[in-house]
């Protein structure tokens, strides 16, 4: 556990100006997409998603967390996340158009990464050994927020990678004592239900079992994962 927090401290101490820069870019692009969504802003946001995934892959895991066991696995995983966004960039799959139904949820999720350092401070931790918005789970939460706020048509590959990351984060809450990741878990499980249910509802082809039964299964799985987290944590 010590090496886990020490690597976070080293990362924060060495990269905090860059982290602020990346957060500023994210904020500007989000505001532009929110107020004046245009093609270049959508492309720029996808490029940002690729860049931030590669940042986590090579700067965080490749350099600062390289002392941890199997950190190269995480580098490869975040490269796959970047690949999912590059695929989206090439195929123009996700529209990044605002959807009215879940916008408030999206706004909350977009702001949640900023709560990470606050929780760390409330736990009595001090900079640089705190969770920041440019740690992998906070970045995943920001991506999830973007998908939720602009969910007219979403990048499902990126979404399921985020779901997988959330499962890793849920285990880290227990195994590495990082309760900040509860934010990601709490955001991801309802998102999992919403996005998959939307996908089922959007499919107009007649399938079996019924839409209600499939939605119930998705809800059951989300609840089961949440229950696993609560049981193990408590």
């Amino acid at each position, binding site marked *: 556990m010590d090496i886990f927090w020490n690597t976070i401290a080293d990362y924060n101490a060495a990269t905090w100006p860059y982290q602020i820069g990346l957060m500023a870019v994210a904020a500007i692009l989000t505001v532009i997409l929110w107020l004046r969504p245009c093609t270049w802003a959508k492309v720029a946001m996808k490029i940002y998603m690729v860049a931030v995934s590669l940042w986590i892959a090579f700067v965080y895991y490749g350099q600062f967390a390289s002392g941890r066991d199997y950190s190269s696995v995480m580098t490869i995983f975040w490269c796959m996340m970047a690949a999912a966004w590059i695929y989206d960039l090439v195929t123009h799959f996700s529209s990044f158009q605002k959807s009215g139904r879940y916008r408030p949820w999206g706004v909350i999720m977009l702001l949640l990464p900023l709560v990470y350092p606050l929780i760390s401070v409330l736990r009595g931790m001090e900079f640089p050994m705190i969770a920041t918005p440019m740690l992998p789970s906070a970045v995943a939460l920001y991506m999830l927020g973007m998908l939720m706020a602009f969910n007219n048509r979403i990048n499902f590959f990126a979404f399921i990678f985020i779901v*997988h990351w959330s499962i890793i984060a849920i285990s880290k809450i227990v195994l590495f004592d990082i309760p900040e990741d509860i934010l990601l878990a709490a955001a991801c499980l309802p998102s999992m239900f919403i996005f998959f249910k939307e996908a089922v509802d959007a499919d107009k082809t007649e399938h079996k079992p019924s839409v209600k039964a499939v939605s119930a299964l998705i809800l059951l799985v989300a609840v089961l994962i949440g229950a696993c987290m609560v049981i193990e944590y408590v």
Partner: protein
Amino acid sequence: MTQEYVTEIADFIARYLSYMLGAGVHTSRVVRNSKRLGTALGVDVSIHTSQKTATLTVCGKDDTSVMNTRVLDIPAFPISFEWNADLSALSWAAYDKKMTLDEIRMKFDALVSKPKMNPVFVLFMASLANASFCRLFGGDIWAMLVTFTATLIGFFTRQHLTRRHVNHYIVFIVSAFVASLCASTALTLGIDTAEIALATSVLYLVPGVPLINGVIDITDGHIQIGISRLVNALMLIVCIAIGMSGTLMLVKDSLL
């Protein structure tokens, strides 16, 4: 019995045969059911099958001068136990209730046009099945959860590539690689059962039906198609091995 009627029967049995073989029914059952349909309609049916095509001859029971022979392609449908059961039951119903060709055809059309399984439902059920396998092999709760989402990603990749008509060997390699790579993230958690998650994450790709059908076909004397099916299954297993080897070489620097 007229030539026209025999041709109509041959048309129908050709469809019936191709749907059953395409849906992954083992050969002797397909042959038996087709012959039963023929008997119900008063004709003799002879069939030769191979992996991609089948040859069918239908001739009058008493008058062998009226006959129809054709070679048909076997379409690649998803494995369907439902079609297997329903179409077998149809052959019995035709035989027992002395149904006419029109009645059989109508019933057949109704059976094969039933709605298909929801892809999201299949995605979740396959992922749950793999997580259950992980548990059966001794995985703990975290390994199960990682296996669940790794399978979710791998299976989603498979569905996506299949929809885009990518070569199915490539689909198997990519899906196995992606699923096992995602499952390998369990190694970073330092849990004891991480390797079980890694090993069970690709089980959803194992071609169980072709393997079983291949063995049944060989034991029933359909050696050629049996060997074809086993070779096909073996190729898919090799593809899974290639995908998983990619992950192991990247993650553990060795295959063991």
